[in-house]
């Protein structure tokens, strides 16, 4: 009785049953070796971040550099550990909606307080 699995975000047809999700239908799913590699990269970036915070030579670009590195870590955890890269687009939209709204609104608020220029 199982129909062919469809995982489109909007249903324009009859309700479908999905096939087994994990490990079955998608083949670019990271394996354990990949996860360990990602973790090592994350650890390395963290080490660099800490090192930067002590290194006077980069003081001028410290804030943007740290933010950039954090963004990389953030995206890696969300995309790979949280599987967002491989999952339905709906999840991505739900999360980005929240993130986007938060970034926009709070940047606006802090701007009205002139936080960036003080």
């Amino acid at each position, binding site marked *: *009785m199982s*129909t062919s699995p469809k995982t489109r975000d*909007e*249903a*324009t*047809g*009859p*309700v479908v*049953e999905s096939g087994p999700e994990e490990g079955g239908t998608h083949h670019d799913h990271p394996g354990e070796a990949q996860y360990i590699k990602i973790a090592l990269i994350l650890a390395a970036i963290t080490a660099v971040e800490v090192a930067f915070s002590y290194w006077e030579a980069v003081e001028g670009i410290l804030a943007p550099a740290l933010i950039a590195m954090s963004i990389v870590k953030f995206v890696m955890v969300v995309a790979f550990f949280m599987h967002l890269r491989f999952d339905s687009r*709906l999840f991505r939209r739900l999360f980005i*909606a*929240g993130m986007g*709204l938060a970034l*926009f*609104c709070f940047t*606006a*608020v802090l*701007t*009205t*307080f002139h936080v960036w220029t003080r």
Partner: protein
Amino acid sequence: MAIVTPQRPEALAPEQPLNTPVRFLRRPTGYTKGLWGWMTTVDHKKIGIMYSATAFIFFLIGGLEALLLRLQLGGPDNTFLRADTYNQVFTMHGTTMIFLVIMPLSAGLANYLLPIMIGARDVAFPRINAFGYWVFLAGGLFMYSSFFLGGAPNGGWFGYVPLTRNLPGHNIDYWVFGLQILGIASLTGAINLIVTVINMRAPGMSLMRMPIFVWMSLVAQFLLLFAIPVITVALFLLSFDRLFSTNFFNVAAGSDPLLWQHLFWMFGHPEVYILILPAMGIVSEVLPVFSRKPLFGYQVMVFSGIAIGFMGWGVWAHHMFATGLGPVAVSAFSASTMFIAVPTGVKIFNWISTLWKGKLTFPTPMLFAIGFVTMFTIGGLSGVTHGVVPADTQQTDTYYIVAHFHYVLFGGSMFGLFSGAYYWYPKFAGRMLDERLGKIHFWLMFIGFNMTFGPFHILGLQGMPRRVYTYPEGRGWDVWNLVSTIGSFVIALSILVFIINMWKNRKPQEVGDDPWDARTLEWTIPSPPPEYNFKEIPLVTSRDELWHRKYTEDEDGRSVRREVTLGQPHMAGTEVEPTGPEGSESPDHVQAPGDHADGGEENGEHEEHIHMPSPSYWPLVTAIGLPIVSYGMIYKTWAVAIMGGVWIFGSLYAWALEPATAPEDTPVHGPDTSGEDLEAVPA
């Protein structure tokens, strides 16, 4: 096709061993009736009714508060209410109407209707749904207990600091913790309805075929999802300042009071769209039915609703134009405020176009819907004038603003909700409300409403400040204040008419499935509906599905009634033929959400038993923990607070380990609690 096997009622109650030690701890079943049945229900319809009934009682209380305010303001230098009493009454009036009336009425309607309108049997998480109601009730009662425990909240519904940081007593603490509790109800409800609409639509019910009320409620739920956390933080910061002397709003320590305003209005502005969108959805359902025409520009209506929700995040500082933000910020927010009038205006034109050249009739729901369109337009126009910064600098903190938001919230939301009440009352209650009394209600309310709030525009422009308990003689404000006060009693009279109408028609009637000759799926099932909603999950082939089942079009494009309504369960020859690429499966092969299908028979004669989720008392038990924690925190009795926390955690644990559908509950659905028996159906 789902066939619900009939049995005689006596045979259905499961055997209960007589030696069960503590009977009341047994999980209630689908047969549990009476008060305990209601207290443990997870049926979205019952929950919707409870939300609506409770909200209506709060409406009466909030209305009484309004009458008290109007009595005090009916004449100059009045001493009917002392200043501090006035502050409590006006704070609670606003807080009640927004959080305990409009939001739960909208939630109740959405709860009842959304699953049915999308062809589902219940919401995604029925027990969380019940939890939301009990938390709402707990929050409302908790907040009102303050009247007896030292005084009600008295810092305005908007709670500006540093005043609320420093006000002595526990009034503000009740406000803060009460709103936190209510926020939990709203947030869980939002997640529930979002998942329901995304995931539980009937076959063929694509997003762009959903009734527009579903769409507007969905947008409102997304707004709740993202806005509630912001006020949650604001309230935590305020409560920590009050309880633990943190410095978030401590000006002496270098804090800026505007932080509160930004956080509050970042929630507050999406909040007003939360208040209006469901009512707009109702109007978009009612106008087409009584114009006998589809909604004009459905897609545009959907997109404008989404646009309003989205843009609503970019306008919040228009509540702060007079706070010294500086010309750049103020101009930016002024522009965005102007822009948001566009999708709103589009909706108004679309409603008018829906009415245009329709075959109009004017029963009470239609009167209230048209009342919405006209009164909301007025409120919207005054809103646009607020967006002009120099004008707003004059208008802010005057009665002109009070006029605006009462026109959009009463003339808008409440009129819309009354329209929905009259429209859907036959479906929920299985009774028709009296038309004559309904019309009297409408006209009295319309006149009283305009008498009460129309003068506020004038008073505001004449300089009368808001949020003050009295005004001196000789300012020229006396006459209009008196008119307004009289108007408020006319409103009260109209509500009495409404109550009389409900009372007069309290006996069940035979209203049939579709008394209005309507367009959407809720009118395909009995009034009131059985617990499982649909005997068979419908197959949807178009927007306004029911209309297309009843009517086809002749060569001139006019609606012509079909001889036989398509898609009636168990009637041969009425199967709805799927059309187009979406309908690639015949009805027999369709698996319905919530149905437990057994085996793999492909023919149309296999039986499906309808599993409904089982009732549970854990939602109620868990909800009780929230006020316990709050009382403990307010009075700094940490033992009580900790006990409340343990209570909540323990209940959540027990809840999580309890299956959604109890294995002991019989798989065969018996007579529903409305007493309606199932017809015997040939296999």
